[in-house]
């Protein structure tokens, strides 16, 4: 091929770039359908969202430019800071529990067990269930009148004398939101950890046992280093997820009592769609972005590494 080309240098210099451009254009055609959708539903919305956040934007009046007005108003909004606080506390409590319990369940399911598939179904499958389906069920389990399961068994055990309305006080509302959230989403981490645990070569444990290492030592020196990356990845993912908390509070408490369970995304929803202040809601969304950007960057570092590992 190259010898033929060197015999006709003139033709080659003219045609080659054109051919190459055509080839590249042809290659781009494979990407184009998705790329067009990417531009319309990812790139454009980012710019649009920024644009909206600098305007007083309701669905009735034409948008009016207010510069940093929306950001300033949200910054001075006590309700917003309450929502930030609620979300941060929720994340700080629920994420460690979710990750630790997910790991514990993965360690359990990694043992030799009878009927492992059905155990996985019980512990893991809820994460794939519709939030509304499971929330309606939990709402029924926690019912105060007629007494739901939790109230019934607690009264049976003599811990309660009267049925409790669990979503009536901030503390018990948060307690159950956290329990239900952990119950719902723990399975994702379990599945992730189980995949990582199954990659650990069994010989490592065997030789450690011969050396007389106890269960805790084996966990610390073999299991933990092997799954460390997945553990960090899942923690970061859970933090980002926790900052998106919406369905649970929307269905179970509606943000109450007295705004005690209002989260950032719920506040954004209420601002944008109950009060129709889309500009303010967009400003809230950028605050959410700022709060979790650090975790987003850690996540990016992980993704970049997984890209490299696949490219090698």
């Amino acid at each position, binding site marked *: 091929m190259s010898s033929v080309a060197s015999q006709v240098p003139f033709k080659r210099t003219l045609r080659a770039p054109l051919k190459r451009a055509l080839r590249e254009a042809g290659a781009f055609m494979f*990407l184009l359908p998705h790329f067009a959708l990417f531009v319309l539903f990812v790139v454009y919305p*980012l710019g649009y969202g920024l644009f909206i956040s600098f305007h007083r934007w309701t669905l009735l009046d034409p948008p009016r430019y207010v510069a940093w007005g929306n950001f300033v108003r949200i910054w001075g909004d006590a309700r917003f800071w309450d929502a930030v606080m609620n979300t941060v506390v929720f994340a700080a409590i629920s994420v460690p529990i979710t990750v630790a319990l997910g790991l514990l369940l993965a360690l359990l399911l990694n043992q030799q067990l009878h009927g492992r598939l059905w155990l996985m179904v019980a512990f893991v499958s809820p994460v794939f269930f519709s939030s509304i389906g499971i929330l309606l069920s939990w709402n029924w389990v926690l019912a105060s009148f*007629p007494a739901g399961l939790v109230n019934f068994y607690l009264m049976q055990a003599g811990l309660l004398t009267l049925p409790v309305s669990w979503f009536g006080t901030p503390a018990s509302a948060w307690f159950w939101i956290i329990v239900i959230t952990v119950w719902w989403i723990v399975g994702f981490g379990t599945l992730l950890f189980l995949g990582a645990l199954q990659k650990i070569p069994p010989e490592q444990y065997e030789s450690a046992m011969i050396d007389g290492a106890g269960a805790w030592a084996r966990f610390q020196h073999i299991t933990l280093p092997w799954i460390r990356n997945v553990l960090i990845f899942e923690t970061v993912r859970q933090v980002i997820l926790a900052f998106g908390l919406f369905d649970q509070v929307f269905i179970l408490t509606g943000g109450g009592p007295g705004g005690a369970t209002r989260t950032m995304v719920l506040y954004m929803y209420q601002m944008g769609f109950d009060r129709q202040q889309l500009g303010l809601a967009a400003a809230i969304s950028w605050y959410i972005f700022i709060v979790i950007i650090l975790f987003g960057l850690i996540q*990016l570092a992980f993704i970049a590494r997984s890209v490299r590992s696949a490219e090698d």
Partner: protein
Amino acid sequence: MNKKEARKWLFSIIAWGAAVVWFSPILWMLSTSLKPTLVATTERVPRWLPDPLTFANYQAIISPAVGAGLLQAFINSVLVAVASVLLLLLVATPAAYALSRLHFFGRNFIFWSYVVVLAFPGAIFLIPHFLIIKDIGLMNNLWALVLPGLGATFGVFLLRQYMLGIPRELEDAAWVDGCSRLRFLIFIVVPLIRPALGVLALMTFLGSWTSFLWPLLVLSTPDNFTMPLGLVRFTAGWGDPFRGIGPTMAGAFIAVLPTLIIFVLGHRYLMRGISLGAIGK
């Protein structure tokens, strides 16, 4: 019985005990759905095995009179999920092929843009998506649930990761045989990445099936509702949330059942897909 076997039984018993307690909210949902509402709300001691057992709640939610469109909501959910899966696979597969195997100007820049947006929170897209859907006239239209998700980059990313594992030599051999890029993609790449396509199909289906906030924003009339919205409306329709608890639990169980079946059949795929997205190989 040797020591190993005894250990296995011990762990199994502990695990099964915990599993039954863990899964009890779903079991209670199923149990309640098989009782007449009056029995469910008045029994003094919770009965896990319904007696009398009735399928009337399931008949009720299917009937137009009581069901209030829940059957239609189920159909809508299926339509949206299936359309989302098929269209995403259709656009993401060639895109992943282009980003992993083909060369063109700006490829790396586009690929890394795809990666960067993976880390953006969904919240920042909500308001602009809402206004875009409004601008293009798709409010209260089921397409509004399908289209925005097609621009997401996770699927392309996942498929690309998998395609990088296809040996180069295969491509060279196909070139020698004069195979076009499109034919190569359809007849050689697609069969090889079937597991990844399966994973992506499952994850997309599950995501679409359980989506709540976005449908809540863009759908307004019950005939267009998906299952989660239909259920919320159905529950609210009884005034007192527990007056219709029998049919409500039947509806909730119907909403959960397809994903339960998918999990039982596809848990291996799901595990692989989750690992692939997180840690590459």
